[in-house]
């Protein structure tokens, strides 16, 4: 029994252990240099990632508050991978930062929150996990202490999050009021689609939509992404969003299955809005982080299409897309982080002629952009293709057509950036960026992921076999 406890909660316990190790180093007397702290933290995160693959078991605990299964294990491992890459990429920025350990403490608490949320089998548990995942993020957004924009981003994040959490909690209370339970197992039988329940559901839905930046609940995204330090932005855009997508899909498919007609319409409407508005805003952006922020909003629209398929392929394609998105977006943000850390340049025009001075980074960014745009044979293409394929099962050709049109629009601004990288002349291009072993490792992982997770079919098939639909 005790043995089971450790195995079932392994994913939550490991970050907690790492958290305390780092905390003791912080309060202890030993004066460690930044470099050795970063090394230690990365090693621990790597162990955390690897340990996740062994000794897993399905099961529930705490009177059905907590459950885990093979798909959840996979999802948590994807997030572990994401946080490991983020940590590798943060090295360039943390090297000279005063509060290295705090960065990791906050990051780990947020990760733990996400894990509890994914494993939550009860709306209360889910809510607690969500708050634990969110509040450290606001502190992280403020981590460039001397920058005004960073503080502004943190303020915006915490205010918007508080607002969305309030409404989410309101939704949960109404849900409890109409059904008398919060357990995921009991809820479906008690959902009857009454107006009050629908309203409660919309509030819950909006809470998720806020976290994964679905239009019109996305407005915080660009401001926060722009202001926050780049590693935090990449964490927000990849790991945090990934976690919420996992929960979103599973909650819709299991708990709110009786309301499937309702949420299908909502997903349809919101995915169209999200793709269109995300892309249109991305078209106009001058700041590369804002451009990536809006493009990531548009990407969420595609995920909603996959989820709307409400089949096994729907779950599988969404999880698969998140995996691909981890590699792709982190590759893009990784390059942006390096450039930003060493030169402070973040405008698209600064990237003109980037290839002339930094051929390797230019190619990495270009491959990532092609993958985001969904150009074969990069993994991004397969991700999008599977999402659309899963969504097409509903035979909603309008949705498919709009999605395909949006792929063209997005291609336009991604290509514009590629053009700037390779083809535009610049009198004073970004100087040669030097990057250390951490950044190199991150780049290798991302590139390998972008190529292999697309071409190696086992990846998708493995995810598919773990997924469920209805």
């Amino acid at each position, binding site marked *: 029994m005790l043995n089971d406890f450790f195995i079932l909660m392994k994913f939550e316990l490991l970050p907690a252990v790492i958290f305390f190790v780092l905390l003791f180093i912080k309060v202890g007397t030993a004066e460690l240099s930044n470099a050795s702290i970063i090394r230690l933290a990365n090693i621990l995160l790597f162990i955390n990632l690897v340990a996740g693959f062994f000794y897993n078991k399905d099961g529930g605990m705490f009177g059905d508050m907590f459950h885990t299964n093979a798909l959840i294990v996979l999802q948590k491992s994807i997030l572990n991978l994401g946080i490991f890459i983020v940590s590798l990429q943060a090295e360039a920025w943390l090297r000279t930062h005063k509060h290295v350990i705090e960065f990791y403490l906050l990051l780990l608490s947020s990760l733990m929150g996400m894990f509890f949320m994914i494993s939550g089998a009860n709306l209360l548990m889910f809510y607690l996990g969500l708050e634990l995942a969110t509040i450290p993020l606001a502190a992280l957004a403020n981590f460039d202490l001397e920058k005004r924009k960073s503080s502004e981003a943190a303020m915006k994040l915490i205010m918007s999050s508080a607002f969305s959490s309030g409404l989410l909690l309101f939704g949960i209370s109404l849900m409890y009021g109409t059904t008398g339970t919060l357990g995921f197992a009991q809820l479906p039988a008690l959902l009857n689609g009454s107006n009050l329940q629908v309203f409660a559901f919309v509030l819950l*839905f909006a809470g998720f939509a806020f976290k994964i930046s679905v239009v019109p609940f996305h407005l915080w995204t660009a401001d926060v992404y722009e202001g926050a330090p780049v590693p935090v932005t990449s964490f927000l855009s990849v790991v945090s969003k990934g976690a919420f997508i996992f929960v979103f899909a599973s909650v819709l498919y299991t708990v709110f299955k009786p309301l499937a007609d309702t949420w299908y319409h909502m997903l349809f409407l919101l995915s169209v809005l999200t793709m269109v508005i995300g892309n249109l805003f991305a078209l106009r952006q001058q700041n590369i982080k804002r451009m990536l922020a809006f493009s990531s909003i548009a990407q969420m629209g595609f995920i909603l299409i996959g989820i709307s398929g409400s089949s096994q392929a729907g779950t599988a394609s969404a999880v698969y897309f998140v995996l691909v998105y981890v590699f792709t977006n982190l590759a893009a943000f990784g390059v942006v982080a390096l450039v930003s850390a060493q030169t402070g340049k973040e405008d698209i025009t600064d990237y003109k002629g980037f290839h002339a001075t930094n051929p390797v980074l230019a190619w990495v960014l270009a491959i990532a952009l092609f993958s985001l745009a969904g150009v074969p044979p990069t993994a991004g293409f397969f991700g999008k293709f599977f999402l659309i394929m899963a969504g097409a099962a509903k035979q909603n050709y309008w949705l498919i057509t709009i999605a395909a049109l949006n792929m063209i629009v997005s291609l336009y601004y991604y290509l514009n950036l590629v053009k700037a990288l390779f083809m535009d002349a610049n009198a004073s291009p970004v100087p040669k960026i030097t990057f250390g072993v951490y950044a190199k490792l991150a780049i290798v992982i991302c590139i390998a992921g972008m190529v292999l997770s697309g071409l190696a079919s086992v990846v998708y098939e493995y995810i598919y076999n773990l997924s469920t639909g209805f």
Partner: protein
Amino acid sequence: MFNNINIALVPLLPLASSILLGLFGRKYIKNAAGIIGTAALLVSAVLSAYIAYEYFFVAGKIDNVYQPIIAMQYNWLQFTPSLSINLGIIIDPISVMMMVVVTFVSLMVHVFSLGYMKGEERYATYYAYLSLFTFSMLGLVISTNIFQTYMFWELVGVSSYLLIGYYFQKPSAVSAAKKAFIVTRFADLGFLIGILILAFHAETLDFQTLIQRLTDANSTQFASSASSTFLGVSALTWGLTLVFMGGAGKSAMFPLHVWLPDAMEGPTPVSALIHAATMVVAGVYLVARLFPIFSFDGAALTVVTYVGAFSALFAAIIACTQTDIKRVLAYSTMSQIGFMMFALGVSGYGGENGLGYMAAMFHLFTHAFFKSLLFLGAGAVIHLVHSNDMNDMGGLRKLMPITHISFLIACFAIAGIPPFAGFFSKEEILLSAFHANTLVYGVALLTSGLTAFYMFRLYFSIFWQKDTEVHDSHGEGPWAMKLPLIILGALALLAGFVPFSSLVTADGMPLETHIDIAFSAAPVLLAAAGILLAMRLYKKANETPAKIALALGGLYHAAYRKFYIDEVYAFVTKKIIFNLIGRPAAWFDKHIVDGLMNAMASVTAAFAGLIKGLQSGKVQQYALYFFGGIVTLTILIIYWW
């Protein structure tokens, strides 16, 4: 039987050379890059010739019918239990034919580029791109399923983007590359949706199963695709039409052709490869690949017919007005592909009715040789003159005899003069159109005449007319450039004698064809008239009537009459055809069709500007939108859905 390793090597060798040159070409093996790329392609070409021989004459026939052979099949991804995505190699008449054409033309271009691109700074990169393109194109033609086709289709798009934008220092090249990529991607979205529709109804992506299920009126899959409708048209027709849209984008059919003329910014040998022989015929190949379904459905095939016929005529008219030699060739390519398309469109499936299909494939085959020859010849000319404009040229026949002769052969071939290659294939196309559709036949006949006219206008402007002073002393260029011209010239002369109708047909059975002199008379005479007209107008420059009168004295009257005829010709062509049809057509092309594409972009941008107020930066406003979203959704759900 076949050695499958040999077959797999055909695409893999160019891939290997591309990776090798891409990774190490710049630093280590820069000067050997051309040789490495060419050697790899040479092996590929020999292998595919051998495969073609094996298939057509040894192993391909069972009971006198050519059977498709799946040389390799690998279940690559199981999307859902009922839908898998495979990677494989299909060997059937059209894929073998395409393999030969692609590797051969690519080899010629590789060899030609040894001379043409010599001394370029990014020489190795160029060869890496060229090999990558060849690999993608080969992957496309050997695909066993529509998903694999789509992947390679996009890869072809990417590699052609790289090649067109090769001279990235030139802003026009960059914007042309981008335009080509985005316009074809726009068409590809149709293709993608088409695939999704077909795959959804047929529950397979595999070509053979797809064809089998969707051409069987009793199958459940056919019933589902024919019965579900969208905007009053059956899902099957939608699917096929959208797939054709993808093909039309790559094959530069009206109105998705706007990228092709601009794409001429790429290096000229690239145009010979991409815009003559390979990528642009991918659309024709795609329709041919799915031909049984197209011919079973009929409605989509009608679209193919009229789009093809219109594009053929439209492009031919515009070609008459262009002065950039590569643009003339670009429009002529579009026109010839229009021929192939409508030939497919008017074709039936089996037996005698399958003439159009056979003719389209035959024309694809012969066109690949003479059109790549024309482009390479144009490349040689540009290499010498350093200009694309035919006004800067003239009298080059003395300076470049080999280019001159081979170019002339290609012009005869495209004009459809017997016994050059184009004559045979064009005859079959005209014959099939004649039997099927009088309107299309009329358009085709007119276009043939125009083709002869504009090609010889090009020919005389380059090689005759005035003498040009050329400052370079390198003459025609090295043998690397001359040899491909000679080989392709020979093929443009002889390829028509290939017994094509017994090799490549819609149903795999040999087709009896013969050349009917009475039928051939009209198009050949029309072509001859076009050539003579071009000769009168363009062979010699600036001959004024006064000079003629002076020189010829007693023959004044005759000369006068001649001039008078010239004047009528000139009036008819220059004033009426050019000003009333050609210029407006060119204008329409440039402003309306191009403009429509640009307008879509600016509408998008304007709309983006309109909604930017949404993103004000004020958190309280964000909360308001957030709450507004919730309220709207609730109201929508409760009162509407």
